[in-house]
C-alpha cells in the first residue's frame, strides 16, 4: 500500500486532520462536532497515515498505549459524572468561569470534560482494534 505521493502528503494530512479534529472537539458545543466526531477523525487520520507509511514505521511511530488512552477517557467521563453527583445528581453539568492571564474569561463546561473523555475513548478503542488487527495480519504474513 505504499506510494510515494501518499507518503509525502500523509504527514501533512495527519497534522491537518489532527488540527481539524481539535477544532471539532472544542467547538462541538456550538457547531457540528464533538467528542465522537473528533475522536473518529483523529483515529481515521492516524490510520491513514499508518497505512501510508511503512508497516514497521507505522508501528514505531504510533506505538502508543491505546488501552490506557481509552481507559483514561472512560475514567475522565465517569469522574465528570461523579463531580456532578457531588453537585446534586449524577452527570449534573456545571459551568465554571475562570480569569486566565493573557486569555481572559474562559468558560469551562464539565460537559466539555465529559466530551474530552468521549474523544479519548473513541481514539483509543478504534486505534486499539486497528493496531491489534494489523499485528495479527503481520503475524499472518
Amino acid at each position, binding site marked *: 500500500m505504499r506510494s510515494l505521493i501518499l507518503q509525502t502528503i500523509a504527514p501533512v494530512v495527519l497534522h491537518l486532520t489532527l488540527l481539524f479534529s481539535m477544532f471539532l472537539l472544542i467547538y462541538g458545543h456550538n457547531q457540528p462536532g464533538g467528542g465522537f466526531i473528533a475522536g473518529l477523525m483523529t483515529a481515521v487520520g492516524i490510520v491513514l497515515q499508518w497505512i501510508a507509511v511503512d508497516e514497521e514505521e507505522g508501528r514505531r511511530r504510533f506505538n502508543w498505549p491505546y488501552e490506557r488512552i481509552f481507559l483514561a477517557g*472512560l475514567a475522565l467521563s465517569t469522574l465528570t459524572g461523579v463531580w456532578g453527583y457531588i453537585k446534586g445528581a449524577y452527570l449534573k453539568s456545571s459551568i465554571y468561569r475562570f480569569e486566565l492571564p493573557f486569555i481572559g474569561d474562559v468558560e469551562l463546561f464539565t460537559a466539555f470534560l465529559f466530551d474530552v473523555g468521549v474523544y479519548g475513548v473513541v481514539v483509543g478503542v478504534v486505534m486499539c482494534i486497528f493496531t491489534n488487527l494489523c499485528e495479527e495480519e503481520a503475524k499472518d504474513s
Partner: protein
Amino acid sequence: MNAFFPMFVVLPLAVGTFLFLVRKNRALQESVSLIALLANLIFAGVLLHATADGTIFVHRMGLWPFPYAIVLAADRLAATLLFLSSSIVGACAVFARSYLTDEQRKEAFHPLLHFLLMGMQGCFITGDLFNLFVFFEVMLMSTYALLGFYYNLDQLEMAFKYTCLNLIASALFLLGVSLLYAQVGTVNMADLAVKIKLLGPTPLMVVTALVFVFVFSVKAAIFPMHLWLPSAHSISPTPISAILAGVLVKVGIYSIIRCATLIFPAAFLILQPGLILLCLLTIAMGALGTLPQTSIKRILAYSTINQLGYIAFGVALLSQAGLAAAVFYIVGHAYLKSAMLLGAGLNQKLTGTVDLEEMGGMMGKAPFASLLMLVGFLSLAGFPPFTGFFAKLFVLQAGFAQGAILATGVALGFGVISLYYNFTTYQRYAWGTGGGEVGAAGAGIYGSVAFLSAFAVIFGIGAYWLFEWAQLVAAQLTNPELYIAAMRDLG
C-alpha cells in the same frame, strides 16, 4: 436513597476500568473485584429493604426535569432483580477464582465481569427506553467478549452466532424505539405509558408492542428467538453460563414485564393469545431439546428455555397472580439454574467432563457434589419442597384461575417431560458404573455452588416469604400509576 442508586452503574463501571488498569497484578485485581461485588451486594440489599414499603426511588440524571432527563427508577421489581444479579454475579466471581486456571486469561475476565454487571444493573434501574437499549448493548458487548473466552472452535462458532443473532435483536430494538418515537415523541417509560394510554391500542401500537415482544424474546429466549441459547449456555465458560442463565435471560423477562404492565398494557391484552401460544411453544421447545442431549450443560440450557416458557406464561396471563408467580419463578429459577450450572462446572473440575456418557456413579464418588445436583434436579423437575415446585404451582394456579384451562393444562402436561429428563439426567450422572477417577475441587467452588443451591431449599421451605414479596412486587406492577406518579412527582 434517591441519590444513591446510580452507584449500581457507576461502581461496576469504575471498578471495571480500574481492574483492567491493574490487570497485571492478579492478587489486587481479584481482591478489589470481590470487595466491589460485596459492596454492590450490600447496596442492593439496602435498596431492597428500602423499597419494601412501596417507595419507588427516582434519580434524574443531570437534574433535568421529567420527562426530558434520563430518569432512573427502582421499584420493588428492579430492586429484587438488582439483588439477584449482584448475588449471583458475586457467587460466580468466587467460583471463577478457583475455576479459571489460566492465569493470563483472567486478566480480562474480572473487568468484563464488572462491565457485564453494569450492563445488567443499568437495564434494571433505567426508566428510559433508549437508555435500556444502550445498557442492553453494554451487557451484550460484555457477553460477546466473555462467552468465547477460550476461543476454541466451539466457542468461536458459538460466539459468532450469538453475536449475529443478538445484532438482529438490536436492530429490531431500534426499529421499536423509532416506531414509538414517531408515534408519541418520547422515550421515557412513564411518559410513554401516559401517552400510549391516551392514544389507545391502535393497530400500529399493537405492531410496535409486537416488535418489542420479539426484541425482548431474544434475551428471554422465547420461541422462535431462543435459537442462540443452547449453544451459548453450554459452550461458554461455566461462571459465565451461570450468569447468563441466572440473570441475563431475566433481563429479557424484566423488559417484557415492563412492557406488559407499564408501557403497552392495552396492546398486550390484544396480543395475549399469541403470547400464550409462544410461551407454550417455548415450553415445548425447551422440554424437547433436553431429551437427546448428553452434555449436562446443554440439558440445563434447554431446561432454561423450558422454564423461561413458564415464567413468560405467568407474565402473559397479564394478571396480578400471574405476575406474582412469574416474579417468584424468576427469583427461584435464577438461583437454581446458576447453582446447577456452577454445579456442572464443579463436576467438570472433578471429572474433567460435562458429558453424561463419560460420567456415572457420582453418588458414590462425590457424595456432596451429587447431593447438590440432586437438590437442583428435584427442584427443576418441580418436586416439593423445593422452589421449582412452588414456582410451577403458582403459575398453574394463576393460569387456572384466569380460566386459561387448556393452555395451563398443556403447560402442566409438559411437566411429564421435565420429570423424565431431570430424573434420567440425574440417574446417568449419579448412578450407574461409568466414569473414571474423581479429582478434587477448591472450597471456593463448593462454597459458591452450595450458597446458590441453598436458595432452592430456602425459597422452597420459605416459599412464604418469597411469595409474599412476589405479591408485593406484582401489586406494584399492576398499578403502573404508582410508577408514573413517582417519576413525575419526584422528577
